[in-house]
């Protein structure tokens, strides 16, 4: 009896820790589903706001092999007004290139909240994209069995993410819904709340159109909507994705940004 108690406690602690690790893994896999360690994707972005309706065709290059200095290059392929616009992220720094004025703007802290290229994503989203795990505590709210978008049986997880005390993030709370079916772990939606106590999300990112791209199952479509502006949205649809590319370092330089 005396021996059993400490062992029992130890078992509970270990299983709790294991659960937290599981959660970490789940979140990481869902988060990087469309990104991998290094990848390139061609996609189209549709933006609908009160004042305009726009479509971009663009390519995104990711290199997240070096966790300390993750790199992203976005290039807009069309239409004419925006062709050649580029965004380069290296670690925490973001640069925007405008080919029409041949000017590179280094995004300052005050600009992080601004919309990226007129979309509902912000500059901050691009910089912080890869850091869900690093800056947040996670807590599993609910786990259930249900049907995913394709009608297949899957295990769903509803996870609450709250920022760590010193995390430089704009959101007080994020609710992340992930589903798991065997090896496939994908996000279904992410709800962003400015204040941790809020009941209604300030903006919502939904993932849909799961299909095989680049050899993996990924949600081909991501749609961002903002609570305060119903009817507006920004959606990204992947047309082509390739994973595990060996992208040369020269791809993530200002020269490449300006090309």
């Amino acid at each position: 009896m005396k021996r059993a108690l400490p062992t029992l406690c130890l078992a509970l602690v270990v299983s709790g820790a294991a659960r937290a690790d599981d959660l970490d893994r789940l979140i990481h896999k869902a988060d990087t589903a469309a990104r991998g360690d290094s990848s390139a994707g061609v996609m189209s972005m549709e933006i609908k706001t009160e004042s305009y309706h726009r479509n971009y065709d663009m390519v995104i290059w990711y290199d997240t092999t070096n966790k300390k200095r993750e790199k992203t290059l976005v290039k807009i392929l069309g239409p004419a007004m925006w062709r050649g616009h580029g965004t380069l992220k290296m670690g925490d720094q973001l640069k925007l290139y405008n080919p029409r004025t041949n000017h590179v703007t280094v995004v300052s802290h005050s600009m992080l909240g601004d919309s990226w290229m007129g979309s509902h994503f912000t500059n901050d989203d691009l910089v912080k994209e890869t850091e869900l795990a690093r800056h947040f505590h996670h807590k599993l709210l609910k786990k259930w069995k249900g049907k995913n978008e394709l009608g297949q049986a899957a295990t769903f997880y509803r996870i609450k993410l709250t920022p760590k005390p010193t995390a430089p993030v704009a959101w007080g709370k994020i609710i992340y819904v992930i589903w798991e079916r065997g090896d496939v772990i994908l996000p279904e939606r992410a709800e962003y709340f400015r204040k941790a106590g809020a009941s209604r999300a300030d903006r919502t990112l939904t993932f849909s159109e799961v299909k095989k791209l680049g050899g993996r199952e990924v949600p081909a479509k991501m749609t961002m909507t903002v609570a305060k502006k119903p009817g507006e949205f920004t959606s990204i649809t992947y047309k082509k994705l390739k994973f595990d590319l060996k992208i040369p370092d020269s791809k993530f330089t200002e020269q490449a940004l300006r090309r």
Partner: protein
Amino acid sequence: MAGTAKLAWRNLGRNRRRTVITAVALAVGMSLCVASYGWMDGINADILHALTRFDLGHVQAHNPEYPREHKLKETINDPGEVEARAKAIEGVVGVSARVYGFALASHRTKSAGVQLVGVDPATEPTVTELDRHITEGRYLERQPTPWPRGRELTQEERAEDRRLTERAEADVLAEIDALSSERSGEDARHRASPPPSGERPDGSDTSQISRQLAAKVDPPPARPPGVILGADLARILKLKAGQTLFLISQTVDGLNAEARFKVIGIYRTGTSQYDRSRVYLNIVDLQRFLRLGNRVHEITVLTRSAERSARVAKRLASRVNGAAVLVRTWDQIRPDIKSMIQLNQASMVLMVAIIFLVAALGVVNTMLMAVFERTRELGMLKALGMSGWRILWLVVVETTLLVLVGSLFGVALGVGLDLYMMIWGINLGAMTEGISMGGMGLAPTIHAVITLEGVLAPVVVLALMCFLGALYPGIRAARMRPAQGMREV
């Protein structure tokens, strides 16, 4: 009556030294109060000047929705009409229209969020003095920059655009394929794959065609439009006159607005709001940059004096369409500055009250002594039949004469100090580089402003205080019992 006056005068003369000291103390106190009023009125005038002559004017007209969130689209759509009506009102000295926007300004590696202000260089100097505070370069040009309008792309152009996109996409896909096949080892054949689009023989043509298409929709200006900005902002962005500034903003219909501008002048007003965060340009240039057509956000009116603002505002409001235009006076727009001015005045009144209390106490003290040392004499007068009222009257007249003499010299001295401060001013530059009150930058030399109120108020208040103070000894003397009085030693 005349007799009482003579008597009072003689009584004062009895202890000449005491009378003189009291009168001098009174005069000094009085002069300080008068000078303080002049000083404070001078500061308040400077604050008002900084507010109205550098930016606000006296009366402003806006779209009724504009004051709440300052949205770009909340404009006055018929500025010409409002301006014409304002100019026709009597007492109006200048009328000028403004357009406002926000932008990210950057120069090399430095950037800052700024407020863009579009003004008409022809009419703006009639309302503000900014053109007289240029420290480097020169003021804005009157002529707007030639800037062609954009147009929609034709069917053909749009088809060409789509072709360019397909081409760009194909190039990128080829690049991606080349990388992935390298990885998987299928090298030899794919090494000869085409290089990325920019290095193609006709790559430069593609980007040029693309730029030409974009320029049809959103043409750039013929040359970088001129801007002027504050010395603090120039320092933050490490800019000098003649250099180029890059501005990124959004047009009223949500398009990207980005262009290069030329810094043609740098100004310094002393107020950080203007020196640190504003960039001024020609109103037509800014309207074109933000695609506002001929709409404006604000029409500002300068009247002959701040006191006329309310009257002019009312007259303007009655002559324009109230649904489309909201007219307000400077104190309605900046109640915080008005509060500050009132606070200055209130704190001054407090200080004056304290000085007067002390001075009045001095007078009361003197009169008390003057009365008590004559107790025997007054007792005798009462015994002889002088009524209590007449004794009270005697004390009051004595006090009045004392206060009169002190006030005369006090006012003269005070006005003298005021005149000195008005003409030469007091330079606080030694203590601080620039003073600011409520964000308004003031010139380091403060000049006093002499007002009737500033001179009369101290006199009236002091007289009243002394009068009230004299009542105590006066009443005591009046109620004294003759027999008791005569027994005093």
